[in-house]
């Protein structure tokens, strides 16, 4: 497990450095609407942007103000500090107002050599899927021009197959959490996911497979009082999950940007129809992402949570929201109501990007678990 922890200590870990020295091209991205498989084509590899151990965002505050979510501010602070110096291209999605303004400020302050905004629609119709596919085509053309990489259908199909292999492994580990006696803690699983998102997949895959073997030998992960599901926005720091679990609430399911539900659902490749990989990726992006930025997706999001609660035998749901996030802040209002109507206990937590106020978090979680009679 320590290997994943070590990979999370820097925004550009040793595997990223190794891949770069092998002549590969890291592309930074910050939103799940950027299909990872797309950025795994040819020499490219995706790096989920994170800001581990950020101590403060003094410079970013000057530009983004104190009212922007700390994730956006942390990324800008790290970018200003050249902590992403290996990243050769940036692919953003205007997923929310905060991300939009991060893009603006980053481009103003850093003037990156390659930066692209993928204009992902906020509702899913045939027209918007076609639009999204076109967006990906435009990105492919730019990547090909700028980096000289092969973005052909064959190359994309190969990348999709690689990503699927990886996603299946992650899913198989995630499935272990459905057991009555899970073999992996939420903290361990989150470290694994975050390390996977921040590393070249081919280099981390052997380590993930070793880890799977290791946990399959286990009998159990210890005594826990309740099984919890965590729902919300960007959650990068596994310590947040660790604090929840320290109070006896085993996190068995996750539905957030950097979680596995439904983020690591394999891509359905249309082999029979000799399908268009870009269109497949466009459709997949909408299916595997459950974000309140999508205007007509509330019921699907709610249903996924309710189904997950049943499938993973969850006792309670923790909704975590980064302070100032309007999407989750507003959306959680009907979400909390709807979950409570279903008889699911809910704890809504407001937090910062990096872990802080650990004592308060412990108290809230402890009280929540007790309120469930566990």
């Amino acid at each position, binding site marked *: 497990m320590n290997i994943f922890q070590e990979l999370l200590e820097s925004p550009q870990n040793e595997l990223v450095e190794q891949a770069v020295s092998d002549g590969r091209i890291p592309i930074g991205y910050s939103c799940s609407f950027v299909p990872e498989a797309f950025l795994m084509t040819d020499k490219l590899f995706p790096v989920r942007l994170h800001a581990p151990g950020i101590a403060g965002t003094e410079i970013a505050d000057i*530009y983004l103000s104190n009212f922007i979510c700390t994730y956006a501010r942390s990324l800008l602070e790290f970018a200003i500090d050249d902590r992403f110096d290996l990243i050769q291209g940036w692919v953003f999605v205007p997923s929310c*107002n905060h991300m939009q303004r991060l893009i603006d400020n980053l481009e103003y302050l850093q003037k990156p050599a390659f930066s692209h905004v993928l204009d992902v629609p906020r509702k899913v119709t045939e027209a918007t899927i076609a639009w999204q596919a076109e967006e990906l085509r435009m990105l492919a053309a730019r990547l090909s021009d700028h980096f000289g990489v092969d973005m052909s259908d064959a190359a994309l199909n190969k990348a999709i197959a690689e990503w699927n292999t990886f996603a299946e492994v992650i899913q198989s580990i995630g499935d272990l959490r459905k057991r009555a006696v899970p073999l992996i803690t939420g903290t361990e699983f989150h470290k694994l996911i975050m390390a996977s998102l921040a590393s070249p997949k081919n280099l981390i895959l052997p380590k993930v497979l070793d880890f799977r073997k290791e946990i399959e030998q286990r009998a159990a992960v210890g005594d826990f009082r309740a099984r919890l599901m965590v729902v919300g926005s960007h959650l990068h720091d596994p310590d947040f999950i660790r604090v929840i679990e320290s109070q006896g609430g085993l996190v068995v399911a996750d539905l957030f940007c950097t979680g596995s539900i439904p983020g690591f659902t394999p891509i359905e490749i249309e082999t029979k129809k000799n399908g268009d990989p870009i269109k497949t990726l466009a459709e997949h992006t909408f299916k595997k992402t459950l974000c309140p930025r999508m205007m007509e997706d509330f019921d699907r999001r709610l249903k996924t949570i309710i189904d997950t609660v049943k499938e993973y035998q969850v006792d309670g749901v923790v909704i975590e929201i980064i302070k100032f996030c*309007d*999407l989750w802040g507003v959306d959680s209002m009907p979400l909390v109501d709807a979950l409570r109507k279903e008889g699911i206990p809910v704890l*809504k937590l407001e937090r910062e990007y990096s872990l802080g106020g650990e004592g308060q978090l412990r108290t809230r979680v402890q009280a929540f678990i007790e309120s469930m009679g566990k």
Partner: protein
Amino acid sequence: MKDAFANARHFGERLPGLAKDFFHYSLIGYFFETKSINDAFIYTKYWAFIWGNIFKLVIRMLFKKGPIAVIRLFIQYPWILWFLNATKLLRRLTKGRKGAYLESTALVIHAIAVLLVEKLEEVIYQPERLLINEDLVPPEIAMAMGLNVWLVEGMGILLPFLNSEACLGFIDEAENAGMNPDSCSFVKSAVGMVIKNQQPRGCAMVSSNMPCDAGMASYTYIEKQFDVPTYRVDVPYHFHNERAEKLFVEDLKGMIAFLEKHTPGRMDWEKLREICEKRNRMMELELELWDMMRVSPAPLASEAIWLSHLFLFHWFPGNKVSIRHYERLVELAKKNLDAKIPAVENEKYRAVLWNPPFPQFPDIFNRMERAHGITLIMDSMSYNHHNLIDTSTPETMLTGLSKIIMDGPMVRHTRGPAENYLDDIFRCYKQFDLDMVWIANHVGCKGGQAMNGILREKCREMKIPLLILDYDLLDPRIVSHEGMMKQVDDFMETVMKPRQASPAAQ
């Protein structure tokens, strides 16, 4: 009993102040203050017109629906009672203004009163044709379909004009229901009204992804509460291209099909043509007005420009009252221009206000005119640059409307690259020969806040005086009126005064 006694005593103590206020804001109070018979006549005329409209609403309802229905209406929508403050608003906004400028301000309040009475009557008499609309989805299409449009956010903007604390109860209600307190008070206010069941419910609802995350996300909750079919239009991020236009036109067609399915409305392209042509007429008049506003000193200013656009273009485009209003504004501006009479006698500085104005403190411009000679020439909500709608075919009309929506205020400034936001400010600054830029730094507008760093540096480079005025759109508890005034006073003292003393520094 003890509390009742204390309350009575407290009320008694407040009585002299209340009486003084009542007198100050009354017609007689105005007569005591004004020195011109002509101004007194103008003021009295509009004062009477506004009250006349309020009485017209009540009397017509008494006759058509009976007294019980009137009482029920006031119980269901108690905020209507704030309309009794309309002439108080007239008094606040016209203070110190004279002649044509006084009339232009009074004219805006009167136009809003007339149109709101019209709107309320639609709510009361034709609830089956009521469409609930998000404020940035223009109403032309629904109007052409024979539907009456009610903006969910409409009262959130209007009520604080009448009383700066009018929306606090709604804001608190939304926060108590679990909405994040740091979200925009404009959105909280609309949601609070829905929770308190003080919004009319239509037969369907149309919302959008505009202008911000909170506004967009709130419609999930509103939809659940209203339980009405809802359509959402989606403006692309990169909208300045033909591809985006095509996508959005298809979206509008989807909206029309949705409305035909879920409401009694049917698309009447001839009616849409008529509305679009009238809207074009309004725009031509507004452009004529803008041309005159480029002259220094300006013939009109402030509410005549921004409040007119805010209400008439967003809620009542193509309405005959709106057209007449703009015609009259043009006449008044010409009158002042020909006679070389400045709107603000002591015009020293010409300003643009960026981001939505101050509904809970609209008289700030009036006060700043009198205190510092600052004349508000333009604002971001009014400042548009799109073409007239081509009314030759249904397709061209939809394309024209889609461009207006995508290029609308708070839409083009909240999506696309930073240039969409910044370049407009500098273009406006140049076009109207301005002296300063005011940013209405609404605490809940995170997208706007995150542009201030770049803007500050750009303004410094271009030597443009920039005031970033912190406030909350609807909640005076965040920054008090005194606090807002102090920010302006400090800016004038520390930035503008030294500039004036040393022109070389400019």
